[in-house]
């Protein structure tokens, strides 16, 4: 269970040189999230949609405990992510979209063994888990290859495996196919839908720009704009109302249509 109440996140805007002299003690802030409220139930599979800068990644990072909100409370299970960060993190696996987030001079397997130890796995249990995940993401024939030699698709597969090391209740994927060609992107989506989400109790939160990915992997969407959630509903509901997710997305990204949609919702 994830419960967000009035989450505000503001980032300081870096000063220009002159401002260090003219305004040494003042800071300007940019509000990335402006009062986000949401309740996510166990087993929900939610695609976070919205334009770049809408606040999707920021919100997911707060759920993952990588950022603390400026105000508001985010509870994962019974833990406040700002106060009981480590306990809250135990429920969450985070698949980062950063290709460099592994050690390039270690093999894929060595990377997973290292991160597995950080996720409290040891000995035979650690080796068995790593072996199982490597097979799951289809890297069994390149597990002994240095990470530096991996393609973008292989790196993303390894990132998914890392996110699952602790067998988390909640798996967060931040644009998992952003850097991939269409075929690799489809492979990743297949891995997630067929193998990662075999446990129906696992909550899946995905920030994505791909509507196809959203349809394959999720049953709900959470549409964000300017740091706020403007819509949170099931994909079935949307398809009933707009015929397709694509039509809905066009409506939501067109300001005039969006205002009409919001008026209808109200």
């Amino acid at each position, binding site marked *: 269970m994830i419960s967000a109440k009035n989450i505000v996140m503001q980032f300081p805007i870096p000063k220009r040189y002159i401002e260090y002299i003219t305004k040494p003690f003042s800071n300007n802030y940019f509000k990335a999230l402006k009062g986000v409220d949401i309740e996510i139930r166990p087993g929900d599979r939610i695609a976070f949609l919205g334009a770049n800068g809408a606040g999707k990644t920021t919100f997911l990072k707060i759920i993952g405990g990588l950022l603390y909100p400026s105000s508001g409370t985010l509870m994962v299970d019974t833990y406040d992510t700002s106060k009981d960060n480590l306990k809250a993190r135990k429920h969450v696996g985070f698949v980062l979209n950063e290709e460099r987030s592994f050690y390039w*001079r270690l093999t894929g397997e060595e990377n997973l063994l290292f991160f597995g130890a950080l996720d409290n796995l040891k000995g035979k249990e650690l080796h068995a888990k790593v072996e199982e995940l490597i097979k799951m993401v289809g890297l069994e024939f390149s597990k002994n290859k240095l990470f530096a030699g991996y393609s973008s698709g292989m790196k993303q597969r390894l990132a998914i495996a890392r996110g699952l090391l602790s067998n988390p209740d909640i798996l967060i994927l931040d644009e998992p196919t952003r850097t991939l060609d269409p075929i690799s992107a489809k492979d990743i989506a297949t891995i997630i839908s067929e193998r990662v989400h075999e446990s129906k109790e696992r909550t899946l939160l995905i920030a994505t720009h791909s509507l196809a990915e959203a349809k394959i992997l999720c049953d709900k969407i959470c549409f964000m704009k300017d740091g706020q959630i403007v819509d949170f509903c099931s994909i079935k509901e949307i398809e009933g109302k707009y015929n397709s997710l694509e039509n809905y997305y066009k409506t939501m990204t067109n300001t005039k249509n969006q205002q009409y949609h919001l008026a209808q919702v109200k």
Partner: protein
Amino acid sequence: MMRLYKLQAFIKRDFTIFLSYKMALITTTFGTVFPLLTYFFIAKMVPSKTEGSLALYGGDYFSFTLIGIAFTTYFMMAVQEFSATTRRDQMAGCLEALLSSQTDTKTIIFMSAIFKFIHNGTVLIFMFIVSALFLGFDMSNINILSTLLTLILSLGVFISLGIFSAGGTIIFKQGEPFSIVFGALSSLLGGAVFPVAILPDGLQKFTYLVPIKYSLDALRLSILQGYSIQMLSNQLIILFCIAIVLFPLSLKFFEWAVEKGKKSGTLMQY
């Protein structure tokens, strides 16, 4: 609680990466021989008038400098490594992955630096062995117990400064003041390559504020003159007091810096 398997994972990670750089082993280990030789020959030219201030430590300038250089380098590493490893992981893009794991931030920062402590400690021992075998460095008077205690207390002080430095790196990214101040003060006031007794009176008073002065003093006396723990009690008590105050403060500061970084979203920036 210290998780040994996590410690092992960090050491294995860093050792594997270290070995993957083919030249690193050769340059970092054998590269220390050249400064040793340099100081060995400089020692041969040191005018006899400085011998008075060296007398307390046995009078041999090479032995004096060897201990000064070797341990200042080691302590400097202790001060810089925590921030260096934080910055390395920030720049490599791994910090976010580490912090999203189920290990707390303090443990990650500590364990990320362990391999460097082991490696540099090995290099330090190598320097002493080479000096003893080939350059006439005499360790026959060493008091192992007081040397070890001095080393442990000194590490307590310098690791604390290192944690301050890591916190500073999270906040300031570059140019954090702790290691810069330490580096500048140590080389001038710490007595790494000359006895602080030769400094002008006014400047000598400032040397009492520099922790490395006590460390080097105690290490020289225990290694070269065999001073016991009791004989070094002044230096050891001062080091103990500094460590006991700085260590918890540094941890608090580091926690505050991480929280500030997470709140402002600047933790991963570099």
